[in-house]
């Protein structure tokens, strides 16, 4: 790890002021991606602004048909929350499958979204539920948030404060895991809400994306069979040691069908 200055503000306001003053500083949330990157010297910011002490960024609440989760809420808190289990059980199960237990005890929703790892789970849920990401400056629709490999619509000095998930009628997330990292090779989040169906795919491309052809088919019949014949083109999909683009394309259809089946079964 290279040397850095460390700040631990107690309020959001203080954090934003520190980030304004230190243009190259990195916000530190749970650190479960950032700290390994620092250790391997893949990243070396001159300063870290630790958001861990900012209580106002934590918490889970349901109001007016949405589930709002504070950006600093840890994966294990989402996984074990009664409110999440009652409103969007698929989200609780997704959170319970991120990384491993120890990672879930530190990793946060906001950190995962801001990092936008191409194989992360939360982007699939945010996109698959049509959530709204609130920052200190504005509200960003999920469809506008994930812009590329580790890239988001966030601007310098902008911090995610919370995420609002509309409550679906049913939803599910199924992940086919990389045998080494256990990140998603392909993860598919499906939801059926008031008049809308969403299918979001993670792990397969440079960032999470919606499978619109599948959404269209599922809108006229929310069954696994409805999408069984969809052939996803491999163009633009990731190809690596663990899975070729062709294999990932195939898996998207298989895993999406399983997600639909799971949503129907309430699993």
């Amino acid at each position: 790890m290279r040397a850095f200055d460390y700040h631990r503000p107690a309020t959001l306001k203080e954090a934003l002021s520190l980030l304004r003053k230190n243009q190259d500083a990195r916000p530190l949330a749970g650190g479960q991606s950032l700290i390994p990157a620092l250790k391997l010297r893949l990243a070396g910011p001159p300063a870290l602004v630790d958001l861990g002490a900012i209580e106002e960024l934590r918490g889970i609440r349901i109001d007016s048909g949405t589930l709002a989760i504070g950006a600093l809420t840890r994966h294990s808190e989402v996984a074990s929350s009664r409110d999440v289990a009652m409103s969007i059980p698929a989200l609780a199960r997704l959170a319970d499958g991120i990384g491993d237990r120890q990672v879930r005890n530190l990793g946060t929703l906001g950190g995962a979204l801001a990092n936008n790892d191409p194989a992360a789970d939360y982007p699939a849920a945010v996109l698959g539920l049509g959530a709204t990401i609130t920052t200190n400056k504005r509200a960003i629709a999920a469809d506008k948030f994930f812009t590329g490999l580790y890239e988001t619509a966030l601007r310098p000095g902008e911090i995610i404060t919370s995420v609002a998930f509309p409550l679906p009628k049913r939803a599910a997330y199924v992940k086919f895991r990389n045998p080494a990292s256990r990140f998603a090779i392909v993860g598919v989040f499906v939801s059926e809400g008031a008049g809308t169906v969403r299918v979001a795919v993670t792990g397969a491309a440079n960032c999470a994306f919606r499978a619109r052809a599948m959404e269209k088919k599922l809108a006229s019949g929310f069954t696994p069979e409805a999408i069984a014949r969809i052939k996803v083109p491999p163009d633009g999909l990731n190809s690596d040691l663990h899975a070729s683009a062709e294999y990932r394309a195939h898996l998207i259809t298989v895993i999406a069908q399983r997600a639909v089946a799971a949503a129907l079964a309430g699993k």
Partner: protein
Amino acid sequence: MNAPLIGQSIKRKEDYRFLTGGGQFTDDVTLAGQAHACFLRSPHAHARIRGIDTTRARAAAGVVAVFTGDDLARAKVGGLPCGWLITGTDGQPMKEPPHPPLAQGKVRYVGDHVAVVIAETLNQARDAAELIEVDYESLPAVVQAADARKPGAPAVHDAAPDNTCYVWALGDKAAVDRAFASAGHVTTLEFINNRLIPNAIEPRAAVASYSRADDAYTLYVTTQNPHVERLLMTAFVLGLPEHKVRVIAPDVGGGFGSKIYLYAEETVLTWASRQINRPIKWTAERSESFLSDAHGRDHVTRAELALDKSGKFLAMRVTTTANMGAYLSTFASCIPTILYATLLAGQYTTPAIYCEVTAVFTNTTPVDAYRGAGRPEATYVVERLVETAARELKMDRADIRRRNFIKEFPYQTPVALLYDTGDYDATLTEAIKLADVAGFEARRKEAEKRGKLRGLGYSTYIEACGIAPSNVAGALGARAGLYEAGEIRVHPTGSVTVFTGSHAHGQGHETTFAQVVADRLGMSIENVDIVHGDTGRILFGMGTYGSRSIAVGGTAIMKAADKIIAKGRKIAAHLLEAAETDIEYERGIFKVAGTDRKKTFAEVAFAAYVPHNYPLDKLEPGLNESAFYDPTNFTFPAGSHICELEIDPDTGQTRIVNFTAVDDFGKVINPMIVEGQVHGGLAQGIGQALLEGCAYDKDGQLLTGTYMDYAMPRADDLPFFKVATRETPCTHNPLGVKGCGEAGAIGAPAAVINAIVDALGPLGVRDVEMPATPERVWRLIQSANKK
């Protein structure tokens, strides 16, 4: 308390310290004034070093010293030696290019050692290492074994322009060729035995210190064999007197072969500790371990089995290219030869076998022994051939094995080994029962209804352990003896400390060796402590590898115990005023035969140390005996493994449903510990078959350089194993033991792959490459569906 201890699942003596954080691993050692080392490693697979500028690094905060290969050359530090000379079919010795601890002139693999930075803190050492400027001229690299001898391939070493270390052969080629010419059926397979990275969870580490006061060195290091480490380092590399170097292997967190070898890091640290007159610590980062721990396996093989129409094996012909990596690691040369070709008879009476092995250099991390070392590769060859042949001849897979099993012992194989004992039918029969093979067809049909393809595969393996009769090993090229040493020190009040040259890094010797000694001497196990891993305390040792510890190290201790009893009998005869020949020893009591006159072991020990009433004219005081034991033959553990698995045809994902292992390790000292050894070996074998594969890109960059890309078996990848043992005692050591450490890793890969091929057989699949990743399996299913 004095009940027989052999065969009891006694809880381990070492567990309390590990469970409470009281273990003392190398990285836990902190010496006063210690500095920290960081090795600068090559980012290139192959490059000429035009120059190294260390000026900025030397000037950086906290830096104590920076050394490069030139510094070592000037100090006449030698190269890292190879301990086994293989002589080729051309009668020439293998090529042994120099292996400098810090690169000189050229780097030959990604991770090769370029310089060491020593600083007050580890962060300062790492910061300064980034300031070293190396002027590299990048050169083309050769990575895959199959490419190493192609015309135009870049030469890794000038001394071996065709990248060939040796071409070696074993067996009667003419007889094999004749058998093939007239065979009723020939089964042929070509495959790669995948390269693996050992991944002991404790990374390698070293703390070296030098004392000017007594001109002596102490090295704490993660090694499986401290005396061998010391011998190689002092005699061949640093030119130091052996008695001035103490090597301590404290608690070591797993080895699996990777900690047998003399590595560059501890060698450089030991040398440098004198240069700066301070202790120095180095601990590998895991990403360094991936690059610099010796890898395992990496064979490219073509294998053929000739049979008659009835399934009787007539001959086997095997051609293997083995990747040595960029340099010869300590035992690299003997793994694909002596520990591989000699095992190709397996459990069978195949009358003629010929194996030719070409060892090649490539621009990759050196390859050496990894759990099983040659024997897993041999078993894979034999057991894949046998099962494929059975399928081709439409024979039952157990029947074809039974038809060819060796049934009479001793048995001389056509590949140099003399099996002393075994009962292969018995282990197979029990495995078939335990795995409920009879119910498999019903389970397969049930799985089919759930859309899953279920398969079952066998592997009936043999291994040669108890390494080794030194004269045999010497004739085969070993440059060291392979005996073991032990010492028993009886204290005046009758408790004992046992010193062994074996080293435990998970095997539980502190318990099993104590069981052996306590049982032999007839005392409570609490009164026996085992000491290992310190050249300053133990007379000598060859260390722990090749499942040799109980067979060779245990026997050495037994011999020492017998000397203790023999001397005790003399003392007791004096104390009891009887003839020595009348003294019997049983369960801690010396007594005059046929009388109730007796002396306890403790009374005899006390008399030896307080010799007021003692035959001082005939006998030295004290009760301390040592022994060396050189085995007369290898031991031959063998067993039957049966794997049952399910494949999801939509994703290609394989899940092990059942894994059964019935092994014959000879006499079992502690069944709990033996079963644990089997479990661990199975996990590594299953890991090789399904998950683990070291991959390089075409330029020699390691693609599987972290746990993000190298798939380690996790708890949810594996089932509970069904494990049982049968005992046909080894005939040539007093304990009747054979060794158990590697069996799981040896037998499992073929069982898993045979099961996958069984599941996919109906689709026309006859082979799958290891590791059988979901995509590989899915592709096989896809191409079968297209046919």
